[in-house]
């Protein structure tokens, strides 16, 4: 076996381990952490944005992001889950995981970690925040409530916009099915 083939097989093995190797316990920690970025809140015109029950699939997003990332980044996501899950221990000396904290306390913990003096801690926390954002704003109904696709007539006039554009939340995304589709392999004239 050549070194190149061996490296290729090791790479695929490491990918498989990273994709499929996350335990249920790790996923439970991850779910508690991801949901704590935007905990349930009173929705209203001046209130915060949050997901309704069943509206956002955080774990599906996490799995997909790990599968699409480099092995190192997939490992980084896993490391982020461990680091943040055990933050009460290494940050405050409390012998418990963040899943055991009250939701508001867990949220406060995330704020501290995102502003931590260590670059590694900040970046790994931000990595999980990216997963949470992808899941949250990737849900069309949540996106619609964020106002991102709104444009008032005043803005339209000031920026010279002449036509109404199709927005994501109005489009059928059903054809995508959330999966990468088959694509052409070879194209000839």
């Amino acid at each position, binding site marked *: 076996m050549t070194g*190149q083939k061996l490296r*290729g097989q*090791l*790479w*695929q093995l490491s990918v498989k381990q990273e994709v499929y190797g996350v335990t249920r316990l790790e996923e439970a920690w991850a779910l508690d952490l991801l949901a704590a*970025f*935007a*905990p349930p809140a009173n929705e209203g015109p001046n*209130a915060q*944005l949050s997901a309704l029950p069943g509206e956002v699939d955080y774990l599906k*997003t996490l799995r997909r*992001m790990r599968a*699409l*990332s*480099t092995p*190192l*980044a997939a490992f980084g996501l896993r490391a982020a889950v461990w680091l943040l899950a055990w933050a009460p221990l290494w940050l405050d000396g409390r012998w418990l995981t963040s899943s055991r904290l009250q939701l*508001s306390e867990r*949220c406060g913990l*995330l*704020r501290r970690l*995102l502003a931590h003096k260590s*670059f590694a801690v900040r970046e790994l926390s931000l990595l999980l*925040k990216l997963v949470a*954002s*992808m899941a*949250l*704003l*990737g849900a069309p109904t949540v*996106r619609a*409530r*964020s*106002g*991102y696709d*709104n*444009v*008032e007539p*005043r*803005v339209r006039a*000031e*920026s*010279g*916009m002449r*036509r109404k*554009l*199709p*927005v*994501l939340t109005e489009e059928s*995304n059903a054809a*995508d099915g959330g999966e*990468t*589709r*088959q*694509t*052409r*392999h*070879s*194209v*000839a*004239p």
Partner: protein
Amino acid sequence: MKRPLEDSADYVIVGTGAGGATAARVLSATGASVIMVEEGPSLAPHERSRGLLDAMGESMRDLATVTTSSPAPLPLLLGRCVGGSTAINSGIIWRLPEAVRAAWASMHGMHELLEPAALERVFGTLETELEVSEVSDDVLGGNGLLMKVASDALGLPGRAMRRNAKRCVGNARCLQGCPEGARQSMDSSYIPRALHQGARLHALCRASRVVLDGTRATCVQGETLDPVTRAVTGRFEMHARRAVIVAASAIYTPLLLWRSGLRRGVGDDYQAHPGAAVVGRFDRQVGMGFGATQAYEVPLPERGVKLESIALPPELLATRLPGAGEEWQRDLRRLDYFAQFCAVVRMGAHGSVRPGLWGGPKVRYEPLPDDLRRLKESVALLVRMMFAAGAVEVYPGVASVPERMTHPEQAELIVADHVRRNDFHLMASHHFATAKVGLDPAHSALSPELQVRGVSGLYVMDASALPTNLGVNPQHTIMAVAWRAAERLANMQRPSLRAA
């Protein structure tokens, strides 16, 4: 064992980004047979996923998680689909600055390739064929408009960008793939044209090595990939009768050459344009989701910096907003009230690209102290611009200063000595010089004709070949250099035919 997928042509081109697709367009126009090999999938505009995660998964290399190996990893944005990075960028067009052209011509032996009259002709042709025009007022969008307001207020030399998207309707979805097909990325322009001229495209084929027969490149070998899992499904061999052209990006071209046993001067001099962004919150609607993704710019070549308006999809904008919980959720409820500007710095740092442990690249790169100083000054200027545009709060994205600034004077905090490189979130989307042209055989991988030294029939025609970074968006320069090199190659091998 399954038989490999085999094909043969006069030219085999690895990579379908700005360099590879342009070479294919030029060479196929001469009547030569051309094969294009691309690792990523072939996606028509209407087939591109609208959701960010799916779109990035399909068209971006490893979801933009390829990073430098430094203690503070710097993400490297690269396309991986037919069209390469032109299929995920904003289509910003800049001609090669004259000062850079002159330096490359005199110091790196590119005087023939970059002969001014020929270059003028090629730039003109590219701009006509790719429908290059200035961003019109009707697609400037709220984000671009605010940068114009800021630029005017501070007396900066701002201007609407020139892009290859004349028919842009302002969907702000360049990153996900223009649903209108307005941006003339390579998958919408030169690849269809090359196919029409008889070229063949093999997508989902990852090149692993260039095969040499003695000192002549004759074949490209690699693996075919599953469209969904990207797992290896088989092998391929593409035979080149005249030449192999490598255009797999300034990160992956050196890996391919390295794995082919070609290491002299390869991967040694990596340069980039890292950048950082600043977000502003306004007390009235901005509407970042409408308008050209990037519409307005402030070039500051004397500082080696370019400032740009850049709209983000909501998922990335949300990540960029500070905090978690209640404060973050309040911001999420008004995502249409934010604007974002970024600074792209022509850094003086030099790094390296080598094969990494798991098949990917190992990129060493770290900004120099002077790079950091210019970065700080640029980000501070962006903060002042946001306030000049009317922002009520600015999020500089710098760890050691207040995460929410409320006065323009606070911008000075960013240039303080205690602010370090690790306090910034940098990203680099322009990569250069990893198999560069030069006069000195000991320090340059390529001859002035872009031929790999010591190997006949092997050329590099992408940003790897450029001798240095250039301070502006490089797509147009990459295309012009590839055009000129392909034209000369065709004329050299078929003197009776004029290229294109």
